[in-house]
Structure formats: structure tokens, C-alpha cells
């Protein structure tokens, strides 16, 4: 297997995990899928680090795996355990229809990715295509789901997609910036976790479709 095969395999795995998140209702499984997705992102970064001899990308890979594949899933699972809600309720659109929509979004993502310049690495096109499809899928997940935790996971999927673009097209942003961004992400997840706690305390549910008093 060549380097580009590994990269394409990982990217495809990320897209598949995003699809599975759309088709999944158990919250634990959704969180594990997010963890898997982040792990694959870490592998993509590590493979590029080796093949292009850009060793600062290793730091990115390690930070991604530790933070997004372990710490954030662990934190979210703890939140779920504490509040004791384990399943997503019926989304606004049922699963088969959702998957069809996501298929359409993938086509759109790939179409847009053809406008990028051909770089030395031929797989860059695939990485961007997958990333844009994941971005759209994440957005879709965000608007159709009702549970606060699923919305957070959708947001994190969008964030993973942005990172895939970053490692795929540019071989990574400057290191200081990436560390800052990683720090901000973990802070955001903590803040979101606290908010979920407060919402559950108050409404005895984390169904965000109940948050609909403010209008006009």
C-alpha cells in the first residue's frame, strides 16, 4: 500500500464515520464514531508528516489524537452518564431520507473541490472533497438533530472537516496557531458541557427544540 492509498483510505473512513453518525441514534455510539473520526484525522496528519518530512505535523497528530480521540469523547461520555440520557429522539428527518440528502451533499462537496489547484500530492483533491462533504454533513446533522450532545458532535465534525482541509491542502498551519486553535476547541467543549448541564438541570431534558421561547 502506498502513502496515498493510506491517506485516501483514512479520509474515506472519516467520511463513512460521518455517515454513520447520521444513521445512529444511540449517543454513546455517536461519540465513539466521533472518536474514530478524530483518530483517522490524526493518522492522516502523521502519514503526511512522514511522507513530506514535516515533523512539526507530528505534534498536530499527537494533539489531535489525545485531545479529540480521547479527551473530548471521554468528557462527553461522562456528561451523558451523569445526566442519564442515552438515545437521540426521532430526528426532524428520518434516517434513510437523511442519508440520501448526505449523498447529495457529498456530490456537491466533490464538485467544489475540483476548483483547487493540482498540487504535487494527487490525493489532495480527495482530501478536500472528503473534507467539504464532511463539512456539509456536519451542518446537516446540526440542523436536523434535537439533542444538545448531538449538536455538539455535529459542530465538532465540522471542526474536524476544517482540520482535514488544513492538513490536506496546506500541510498544516503554523504550529503556534494550531496549538491555540486546539486549546480554544477544548475550552469550547467545556463551556458547551457546562451549558448542557445547566439546560438539563433546568428543563429536565436536553432536547434543544424546547428552547424556543425567544422569537421576534
Amino acid at each position, binding site marked *: 500500500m502506498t502513502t496515498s492509498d493510506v491517506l485516501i483510505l483514512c479520509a474515506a473512513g472519516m467520511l463513512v464515520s460521518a455517515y454513520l453518525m447520521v444513521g445512529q441514534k444511540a449517543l454513546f455510539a455517536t461519540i465513539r464514531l466521533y472518536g474514530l473520526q478524530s483518530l483517522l484525522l490524526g493518522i492522516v496528519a502523521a502519514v503526511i508528516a512522514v511522507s513530506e518530512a514535516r515533523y512539526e505535523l507530528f505534534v498536530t497528530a499527537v494533539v489531535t489524537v489525545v485531545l479529540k480521540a480521547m479527551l473530548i469523547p471521554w468528557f462527553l461520555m461522562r456528561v451523558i452518564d451523569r445526566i442519564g440520557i442515552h438515545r437521540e429522539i426521532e430526528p426532524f428527518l428520518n434516517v434513510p431520507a437523511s442519508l440520501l440528502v448526505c449523498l447529495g451533499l457529498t456530490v456537491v462537496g466533490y464538485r*467544489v473541490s475540483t*476548483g*483547487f*489547484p493540482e*498540487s504535487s500530492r494527487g490525493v489532495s483533491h480527495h482530501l478536500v472533497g472528503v473534507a467539504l462533504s464532511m*463539512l456539509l454533513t456536519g*451542518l446537516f446533522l*446540526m440542523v436536523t438533530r434535537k439533542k*444538545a450532545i448531538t*449538536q455538539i458532535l455535529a*459542530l465538532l465534525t*465540522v*471542526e474536524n*472537516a*476544517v482540520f482535514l*482541509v*488544513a492538513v490536506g*491542502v*496546506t500541510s498544516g*498551519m*503554523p504550529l*503556534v*496557531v494550531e496549538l*491555540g*486553535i486546539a486549546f*480554544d476547541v477544548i*475550552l*469550547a467543549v467545556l*463551556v*458547551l458541557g457546562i*451549558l448542557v448541564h*445547566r*439546560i438539563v438541570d*433546568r*428543563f429536565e431534558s436536553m432536547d*434543544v427544540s424546547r*428552547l*424556543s*421561547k*425567544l422569537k*421576534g
Partner: protein
Amino acid sequence: MVGGLALTFGLCMATADQFLGGQVPAAFANALRVDGLSALVLVLCGFVGLLSATYGIGYLRRNEARQLVTPRMRLEFYGLIPAYVFAMLLVSVSNNLGLLWIAVELTTLASVFLITFHDRDTSLEAGWKFLMLGSLGLGFALLGTVLLFAAGRGALGEGMTALNWTRFMQVAPELHPFTLRLGVVFALIGYGTKAGLAPMHTWKPDAYREAPSPAGVLMAVGMLNGALYCILRIHLISKASLGPEFSGDLLLKLGLLSVLIAVPFVLIQWNLKRLLAYSSIEHVGIMAVGIGIGGEAGVLGALLHMTYHSLAKPVAFFSAGTLAQLHSSSDFKRMEGGTFNRAPVASVLFVIAALMITGSPPFGLFFSEMTILRAGFLGSHATATSIFLAALVVLSCGFAFQVGRLVLGPPRHPSDRRVPVAEHFDLGMGAAIVAATLAIVSAFYLPGPLVALIRAATQVVSGGV
């Protein structure tokens, strides 16, 4: 806290002064750099930070007098307001696009707990919507930043300086057009969400209603200016590489949409602070239209508008906040019955503020709006400017209707027993009066250094580096 923020404001002034003295203060390999635009936004942020902290202490004392404040809330308040101001100042001096993004994200995180400060059902809702929409916007802005970086791959070089705005401006002709376009669109939408440009404005009314008034001012002025600063930086990169039409037209459309979307909501509004939020959506729209029309006149109008808006908006928030505290709510139905009879000072201040923010002569916002309109009619945007003008007129009338209803409405029914707290003079009131005096004076006289800053900022925006 006031002392600290006064010191901060002093430092902002000193930095701006250093800039006017002909230097370009920079630090950390140019990651922080102060040019005309930064200096203007920096001074305005420092000013608003000081003002809102002063008012904030009075605000908290009033709530303490009514036993509404727990020790934890005190701690939150005194911790979060300076953190928020710090993050905004960091935004205004960032020259590095990555650092800029991080600073904007910090402002978001600092403001979430200010929005949920009162811990009501509705404030949780507002906080959740704000954080979800804000994070999504920031995700887009990050993607935009990554794509901008990708567009300049090879030309920008390596390391920390590669993301510097000044570096982007140097290599602008070599940026890859398609990637750049995509990046600019994502970044403008992303930072536009933070600025509250339609159609990503929906968090604003909720957040403004729930946040305590001092934090509301920071959002409505500081955050708005900061987000506009980001938008301007992206716009300038796009302008240098693709010409002024691409991002200019996008901004013009978004701005026009913001002004138009505010119209129906101002007319049917039921809450005082939400009214102010729609006014703020209108004003960010006006600034975006000014930048979109472009040319030196359009940009000058937009930056003048930013300055005058920063002076006028605090008055509106302080007086509205006082009225809301006296009635324990900012809903019109709780405040009905002519607030003038119960709180004459706050009501008069609010009327003055309303005159200012609807752009009535002789106040400053009138001149800046005229400048933008003139630039629009003289340029090639006659249709857009006509629609814009019509929307502004309707908005002024709508605002006048709402304010009249609130301040002069018929007296309450005698059987109504909800007695509001009486108005009395305190620190919060003092801050409101000082803010109003400054805003009125600014209509007739702007201090020389401030004018110089506005000119320098205009030059940055309309003339490249």
C-alpha cells in the same frame, strides 16, 4: 475593575499616540501590529470597556440592593468583563490571521457566561443559540483562514509570519484566485456571524435581551467593531488580489439585507433590548454598505459611523438598562404607562440616544449616513442606495413610534399594583450622563487626534497598506 480598565484605556491612547507620532508599534514577529485601523478600533474598544465597567458596577450595586446577586455571580461578573475586554483588544491589534481567529473565539467564550448571567430559562436558550451559531460561524471563519493560507501556499513562506496580514498584502497578486474566493466567502460569512450581519444575525436579539446591560454594550459596540475589523482585513486581502468588486459586492448585499431585515422586527418589537439589538443589526448593515460602496468617501462614512455609533450606543444601553432595572423587565408590557413620569432622567437620556441612533441631525450618525448615501449615489450603486435610504427612513419612523409609545404612553390603570422602583442618582446613572454628554459634544467637536486616527484608518482601508 474601573481602575484597571482606566489604565487599559490610557494604554490604548498611548499606543494610538505612538502611532500618530509616526511609528508602527509591533511585537512578536509582527503578530501584533498597530496601523491606523487597529489604532481606531483599539481606542474605541478601550473607551467602551471603561465606560461599561463603570456603569457595570452601578448596575451590580442596584441588583445587590435587591438581593439578586449571589457571591458567585459577583465573581463571574468581575472576572468575565475584563476578560471580554482583553479579548476584544487582542482582536484589534492582531496582524496574524490565526491569532485573530483565536482572539475572536476567546471573545465568544467570555461572553457566553455573561449572556447566561441571570440564569433564567430564556438566558440558557439565548446562551445556547449564541454559542452554537457563534461556534459554527467561527468554524467557517477558520475554514476561510485555512483556505486563504492555502491560496498563498508557496508565496507566503513558512512559520508564524506566513499568516501575517501584511505578508498576505505583499504577495496578494500571487494568490490562487479560486481558493482565495472560496476562502474570502467563508471568512466573511464567519466573521459576519460575529458582527451580526443578516442572515446570521438571529443570535443577536436573544443575546442582547438576556445579557446584563453592561455586557450588552460590550457586545453591541466592542464585539461589533472587532468583528468588523476582521471583515475589513479579509476584504482588504481580497481587494488587493481580486479587485474591489468581489468582496465589496458581497458586503453590500449582506449589509443591505441586514438593514432590510431589521425593518419589520423594529415595527413589531415587544422588548426594549431586542429593539436595540435590531438597531445594532441595522448599524452593522450600514457600515457594511459603506465599505461595500467603497471609494474613499464610502470607507470614510463607514469608519465615521463606527466611531459615532460607539459613542451613541452606550447611552442607549445605559438608559434602557436603567429603565429595565426599575421595572424588573425589559418587556414593553411591563414598562407601559409612560416611563417619563417615573424615571425622567433615564427617559430623557433614552430619547436623546434614540435620536442619535436613528441618525437625526445634528448628531454624528446623521453625517456619517449622509456621507455613505452621497458616496452611493455618486458611485455606481444608485438602486442599492435608494433601497437603503428608504429602509433607513422607515426604520427611523419605526423607532420613533416605539420610543414614543414607551416614554409617553398613557398612564397605568389605577388598579395596577406593580410599583416600579423609583429612580435615584448613582454610579450607573452618572456613567450614562457622562456618556450622553460625550456623545452630544462629539456631534459638534471631535478631538484632533481622533480625527487623525479616522483619517489614518480610512487611508489603510481605501489605499492598501
